Structures are given as C-alpha cells and as structure tokens.
C-alpha cells in the first residue's frame, strides 16, 4: 500500500511540483496584492469548484460500469462476422472500453490476427476514439446532451467512411505489425 502511494506520487511528480509552486504563487499574490496573480487565482477557483463537483460522481459510474459489463462475450464475436453484424460487434466492443487513442492500436493488432476485415479494424479505431461510453458520460455532463448527440451522429458516418476508404486504399495486402516492445505478452 505504501509502495503504491510512493509510485503514485512519483508518477505525478511534475504535476505535484506545479501545484506546489502555484500554492506559493497564491500566497504571494494575496500577500502582495498582486493584481495579475489574484485574477489568475480567481479564474482557477471558479473553474475548480465547477469541475470538481461532477467528477467524483462520474468516476463512481465508470467504476460500476467497469465491473458490470462483460467485455469477454463481445470479444468472442469479433472477427467471426464481417457484415453489418460484425460492424455492430466492433462498435459495441469499442464503446465498452476506456483509454486513449494509442490504447486502440494493440487491440487493432489482435483484431487483425483474429481475422477482422481492414474496414472493421478502422471502424474499431474510430469508434474507440470517439464513442467510449465512459467518455460520453463526461461529454454529456459537461457539454450537454444536444452537443453529444450531434457530435456522435456526425462522427459515426465519418469514421465508417474513413474505414471504407482505408480498406479501398490499403485493403489487399494490409498488415498490422506488433512492435517489439509489446511482444512479451
């Protein structure tokens, strides 16, 4: 436990240094009546209060989502179907995951190895980067349902089109490689 905490502190050392420096900046600004500093601190406090209320609630939702959603069932279907059904499974899989864009590449490799079509692989990447359910909950919370719906509805055809184009251009001999660093697992 203590080791974990040390690791966590080390991982965030730059952030913690910046936060520490900022804390000193707050004290000095108010002590010296430094106008630029006070304005900055007020900007910070305004956004901090507004943001910090929502976030813990969202993470509880994401955590629950994580323990209840059976990703394995979906993964089993990937690669088997190649038609519309295949697309639906791929989109569903991508929506259930979390993580940044570069987290999608190793999964793309696995999909490729399992025999998924080039089109479905790129649909996966598009859907993974824009339709993750945990992210959508953040989007709706901060930017509203209207924005989220509109963006999602426009993004869906765009990345399907991109996937179709990618298959047209690279289709026949397209090969996804696994970088050396990942080969261990």
């Amino acid at each position: 436990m203590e080791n974990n905490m040390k690791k966590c502190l080390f991982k965030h050392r730059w952030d913690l240094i910046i936060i520490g420096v900022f804390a000193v900046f707050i004290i000095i600004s108010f002590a010296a009546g430094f106008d630029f500093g006070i304005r900055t601190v007020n900007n910070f406090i305004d956004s901090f209060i507004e943001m910090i209320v929502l976030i813990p609630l969202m993470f509880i939702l994401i955590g629950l989502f994580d323990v209840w959603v059976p990703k394995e069932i979906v993964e089993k279907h990937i690669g088997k179907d190649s038609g519309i059904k295949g697309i639906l499974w791929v989109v569903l899989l991508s929506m259930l995951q979390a993580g940044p864009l570069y987290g999608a590449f190793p999964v793309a490799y696995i999909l490729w190895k399992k025999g998924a079509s080039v089109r479905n692989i790129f649909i996966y990447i598009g859907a993974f980067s824009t339709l993750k359910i945990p992210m959508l909950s953040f989007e709706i919370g901060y930017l509203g349902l209207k924005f989220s719906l509109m963006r999602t509805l426009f993004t869906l055809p765009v990345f399907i089109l991109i996937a179709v184009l990618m298959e047209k251009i690279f289709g026949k001999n397209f090969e996804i490689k696994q970088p050396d660093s990942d080969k261990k697992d």
Partner: protein
Amino acid sequence: MWGLLIGTTGAVIVSLIFNREKTWKGIKSGARMFINLLPPFITVLILVAFVLTLLPKEILIQLMGEEAGLTGFAIAAVLGSISLIPGFIAYPLSAILIKNGLGYPVIAVFITTLMMVGIVTLPLESKYFGWKAAVTRNLFSLTGALIIGVAIALLWKII
C-alpha cells in the same frame, strides 16, 4: 448536475441490491481512477487559469469565437491534433472555453481532432500500421473533424 447525482445514487443502489461485493469493487476502482486523475487535472486548470488571465476574453473570442469562422476551426484542429489530453480533462476544459465565449462547433473540432488525430503518437501508430497508412488515417481523420465542425455549425442554431 442534479440528474447526475440522482443517476449515480440510483446506479449505486441498484448495483448494491444485485451484488454488494462487485459494487464495492467498482466504487474502489472509480476512486482509484479519480485520485490518479486529480494531479494532472489540477495542473491543467492552473495552466488554463493563466491562459485566461493573459489572454483576455475578447482576444480568445476574436481568435476562436463564432466570428472567427474557419480561422477558429484551424486553431482548434491544430491544438487538438498536437495535444495529448485525456477526455476526462478535455471535456471540463471545453466547458470552461464555452463559458468564455467559444462556440460548440469549434469545440467539436477540438474534441474530434483530440480523439482521432495524434501527431505525437504518429511514430507509435506507424509501428502498427506502417507510415503510409498511419499518415493517411490521420489526414482523413483531420478532414473528417473539420467536416463534423462545419456540419454542427450549420445545424446548431436550427435544431
């Protein structure tokens, strides 16, 4: 805000009824993610506070507001393509920018490029797909993001 509070409370209660152990595990994993996010999140808020003080609202709106048109889209696309901000931070950040006068279409371009285009991760992506496919995918995604922005700009006021 209240919707989220009610939704979360409801989800926790339903989850508790079905499985107490799983619920606890879920809340714990959520809390862990939250604690891990907090330091970078506060750092971004600090940087944004400085940017908002240094860059007055009028100039921000002039550069990226509705009147800025395609210039605003271009700036948003560049920012989104080069930065590596997780969505957990990007959405609150976008909400701050909207409060400071930016329009939703520009934010859509920023969010979409942020998620689908990765200049910094291009070398990594090319290891999987090869340079040609990686660059092509990124260029297509960039174009797509701009199209999405224009589409939202056209429809936002109508709907």
